[in-house]
């Protein structure tokens, strides 16, 4: 392509984008007010929304989900993410060859990079034990976050009286139950490996009452009291970790979702594009943080604490 043609294409595209932005600005909530904007005023639901009509009615009346299994839009989204991952790996590993091609090459690159990361944190010996869990958390969180950025997520839903009543899909990360489930699984994973490798001695890290038997002086008693307190703090931090894991992911995903909705509401075109880029990054970072922290915690947990000798 000649240089001048490329230049004129860039100019035309720039003008088009600028025009779209102006149109978006004029039709958005900033100029036309919240009631007359091009898009409906975004309704922020922290609760996942049921897909079935009967469940939706129950929620409308009781303001809570029924105490049984409910197919929600976030759950459906998580199933789609699960299906995508399974199908991707199924086709990638169906006919594997020593010289990789296409999908196999792609998945091998991802798995290889993640495996190297796990080795760099946990060491060669533990990498095989921890890798499947790390990779699944990372991929699940990432795919869920990125799926939510697809325009179809905002477009599909149930319309009532000309307005979107319920969205069919919503990123699973914005459902508290999904981060909570991952946090619980992560907690169990860390404790499982710690107990398996260190045995019951692992609990010695939290309950340091053994020092009381060796107290000889007042300063020794003071030291032991501090030690016991620190142990209990460790226990508390271990449990609080579930909460921090849950709300970190939930908060980030929900905030991202709200940010995109609000920016699109304020200026329907162009304006939200940089935020989509930001959300791509946030999704990746959150996936890495969730999986990475789990890996770091389990690597720390399997190291015997001072005074113990576990070989």
């Amino acid at each position: 392509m000649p240089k001048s043609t490329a230049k004129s294409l860039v100019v035309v595209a720039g003008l088009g984008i600028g025009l779209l932005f102006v149109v978006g600005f004029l039709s958005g909530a900033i100029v036309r007010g919240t009631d007359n904007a091009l898009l409906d005023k975004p309704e922020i639901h922290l609760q996942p929304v049921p897909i079935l009509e009967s469940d939706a009615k129950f929620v409308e009346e009781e303001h809570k989900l029924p105490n049984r299994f409910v197919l929600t839009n976030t759950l459906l989204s998580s199933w789609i993410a699960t299906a995508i991952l399974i199908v991707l790996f199924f086709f990638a590993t169906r006919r594997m060859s020593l010289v990789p091609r296409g999908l196999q090459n792609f998945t091998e690159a991802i798995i290889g990079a993640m495996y190297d990361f796990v080795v760099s944190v946990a060491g060669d010996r533990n990498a095989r034990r921890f890798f499947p869990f790390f990779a699944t958390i990372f991929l699940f969180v990432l795919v869920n976050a990125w799926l939510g950025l697809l325009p179809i997520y905002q477009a599909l839903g149930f319309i009532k009286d000309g307005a979107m009543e319920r969205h069919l899909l919503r990123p699973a990360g914005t459902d508290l139950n999904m981060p909570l489930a991952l946090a619980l699984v992560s907690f169990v994973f860390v404790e499982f490996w710690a107990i398996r490798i260190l045995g019951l001695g692992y609990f010695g890290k939290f309950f340091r009452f053994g020092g009381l038997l060796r107290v000889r002086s007042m300063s020794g008693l003071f030291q032991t009291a501090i030690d016991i307190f620190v142990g209990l703090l460790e226990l508390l931090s271990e449990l609080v970790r579930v909460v921090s894991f849950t709300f970190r992911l939930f908060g980030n995903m929900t905030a991202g979702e709200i940010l995109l909705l609000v920016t699109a509401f304020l200026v329907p075109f162009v304006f939200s594009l940089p935020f989509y880029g930001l959300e791509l990054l946030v999704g990746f970072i959150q996936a890495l943080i969730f999986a990475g922290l789990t890996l770091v915690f389990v690597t720390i947990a399997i190291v015997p604490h001072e005074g113990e000798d576990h070989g």
Partner: protein
Amino acid sequence: MAELGFHWPSLLVYLVNFTLLLAILYVVGYKPILRILNQRTERIRGSLEEAEQIRAESEARQEEMKRELDQARQEGQVLITQARELADRYRDEERQKAKVEAEAFLTRARSDIERERDNAIEEVRQQFADLAMTAAERVVERSLDKDAHREVIEKVLQESSKIGGNG
């Protein structure tokens, strides 16, 4: 928590969902991919080791060839030296032999010459004696005792040969 969306059946479903995903991805994804990555690593390592081995073998072979060449050169040198020595010895022997033969030939020739000379002298002496007798007979013209005659002549000849030998 309910306001935030906590719903224990959903939580349970997410837990089951994640566990299933972990299990399926392990079987369908991680295990085969890690296996093939391992296989590839092993293959590459094997190839590198093989290449290293071939290089080492080639070096060893080259070294051996060099050594054999050196040895052959040394052996060749020894052979040349031996051949030279042999040739020298043969030449000396032949020279010696030729010398001995020449000397033998010379000695034989000398003795032959001496013998021939002696024979010639003897013959000359005989002829001379006969001639002298004939001459003496003719000069004296008388018949003398033949034996006394010969005795005189022998005596004369001996004296003459003494004179000839000294001469």
